[in-house]
């Protein structure tokens, strides 16, 4: 059950999207998000959608996987959409009951918002689907490295993140073991009301915490034995090299952004 965690799941592959420099991928994703949020009409989003679909196609990751990441947010999306439809008051009125009105403006905003959020999720999923968490951490460390000048502990944060990632499978395994051990002693973990189950989780969390502290202590000693002394003067085995491909991807993204703005300006003039 614990093995199905899908947050930030990575699908190894060798597509052109996989091979992009992770630093560029992060920057491109940020530009993409900016594009979705500055676009003020449907045409602008259509450009974003085309861009997303091309990227998804190039990544060779099945659309099904993107549906998986959108699905958990659907109830939230629908509720907001319904509220928008009923409460926004602008344009032609299609239906009216007491203070609730269904208007053209309301429907537009709901549709617009749903598309925007879905595209947003798809784009950011694409980043985590095509970049391994450890590469992502590495890229974040390098992108944030200018902050070192402001005494921001960039290296320490990245080290913490990568150790956390390293220990996720270990701790999951350990949790499974502790659960079995507690079940063997008669603990009821899967039954009872929400509250009793939450209470019973304590019998799993306490040993898990204790063993994590022991692990952390041993790991710290092992790291010291291997001459770890912070980020100063470190070299890296993983080399990140930006190539022409990365620059081209960035330029294409910027062109799409420019196109989205241009199209929406033209569209505005036509509507007048």
């Amino acid at each position, binding site marked *: 059950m614990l093995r199905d965690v899908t947050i930030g799941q990575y699908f190894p592959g060798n597509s052109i999207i996989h091979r992009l420099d992770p630093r560029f991928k992060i920057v491109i994703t940020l530009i993409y998000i900016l594009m979705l949020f500055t676009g003020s009409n449907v045409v602008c989003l259509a450009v974003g959608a085309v861009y997303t679909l091309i990227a998804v196609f190039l990544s060779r990751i099945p659309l099904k996987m993107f549906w998986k990441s959108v699905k958990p947010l659907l109830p939230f999306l629908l509720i907001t959409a319904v509220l928008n439809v009923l409460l926004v008051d602008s344009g032609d009125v299609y239906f009216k009951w007491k203070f609730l009105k269904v208007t053209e403006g309301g429907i537009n905003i709901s549709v617009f918002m749903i598309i925007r959020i879905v595209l947003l999720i798809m784009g950011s999923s694409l980043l985590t689907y095509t970049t391994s968490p450890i590469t992502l951490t590495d890229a974040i460390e390098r992108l944030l490295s200018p902050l070192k000048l402001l005494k921001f502990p960039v290296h320490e944060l990245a080290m913490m993140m990568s150790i956390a990632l390293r220990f996720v*499978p270990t701790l999951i395994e350990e949790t499974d073991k502790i659960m079995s051990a507690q079940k063997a002693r008669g603990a009821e973990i899967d039954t009872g009301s929400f509250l009793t189950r939450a209470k019973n989780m304590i019998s799993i969390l306490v040993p898990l915490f204790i063993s994590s502290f*022991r692990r952390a202590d*041993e790991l710290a000693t092992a790291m*010291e*034995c*291997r*001459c*770890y002394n912070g980020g100063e003067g*470190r*070299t890296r085995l993983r080399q990140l090299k930006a190539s022409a491909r990365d620059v081209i991807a960035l330029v294409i993204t910027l062109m799409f952004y420019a196109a989205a703005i241009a199209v929406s300006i033209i569209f505005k003039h036509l509507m007048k």
Partner: protein
Amino acid sequence: MENIIEISGLHFSYPSDGDTEPAEVLKGIDLTIKEGEFVAVLGHNGSGKSTLAKHINAILLPTEGKVVVDGIDTADESRLFELRQRAGMVFQNPDNQIVSSVVEEDVAFALENLGVPYEEMRRRVDESLKAVNMYDYRQHSPSQLSGGQKQRIAIAGIIAMQPKCIILDEPTAMLDPQGRREVMATIKKMNREQGITIVLITHYMDEAAQCDRVVVMDKGTVALDDTPREVFSHVERVMEIGLDVPQVTELAWELRKAGCDIPQDIITEDECVAAIQKLFAAK
């Protein structure tokens, strides 16, 4: 041969935590280990063998006495990283000493810390992985590996530093028999082919029997220090300390007690088989 580890008059106490008296764990140890030696350190729980090991690369510092490794006094803080590079340490739990999610990056960890340039790092990482026979797994995640494989990765991470000496603190204690064999074979190979001094802390007597020299610790002192053959021939003394002798040695000892004419210094299965065959042939 030169001495690589020189321990003289070593006393160590863990600091008291207020209510209790400081417990003296090591009570005057004198020990020298020569370059290229393969030494096993035996002792039951609480005999101070792990504490001793932690003095060799300055995880702990002596309360009294001196530890010098390859000419570096462990108390000399300015040469700490130099010392740790020359005397690497492998621990019991393979999971708790692997830092990275990718095998080759873990092997590179020490080299990254030492600021080794990329080309040389690449070469040393590949060589180390080949030396422990894990090169094909370089892109794997450690969580996909068995205990024995993880322990070999940990060893690769140490030999990448090109140390003169490796201290292994019960590296096989958490492994299955297959993993134990793999790790022992790797350690022996490092000793034989690269001439790395090995200090192996263990509680497996058959592992100790494969070493050049056995140091038996008891209550914070060195009780016995000799070749495995000599140490294990003192069966009663070893058992008095609370340790076992290798199974074949015990068998020979029991047979002798029962009046059979069998040599006292048997430590390997082959020797035992040969001696028993001789016994039958004589009848």
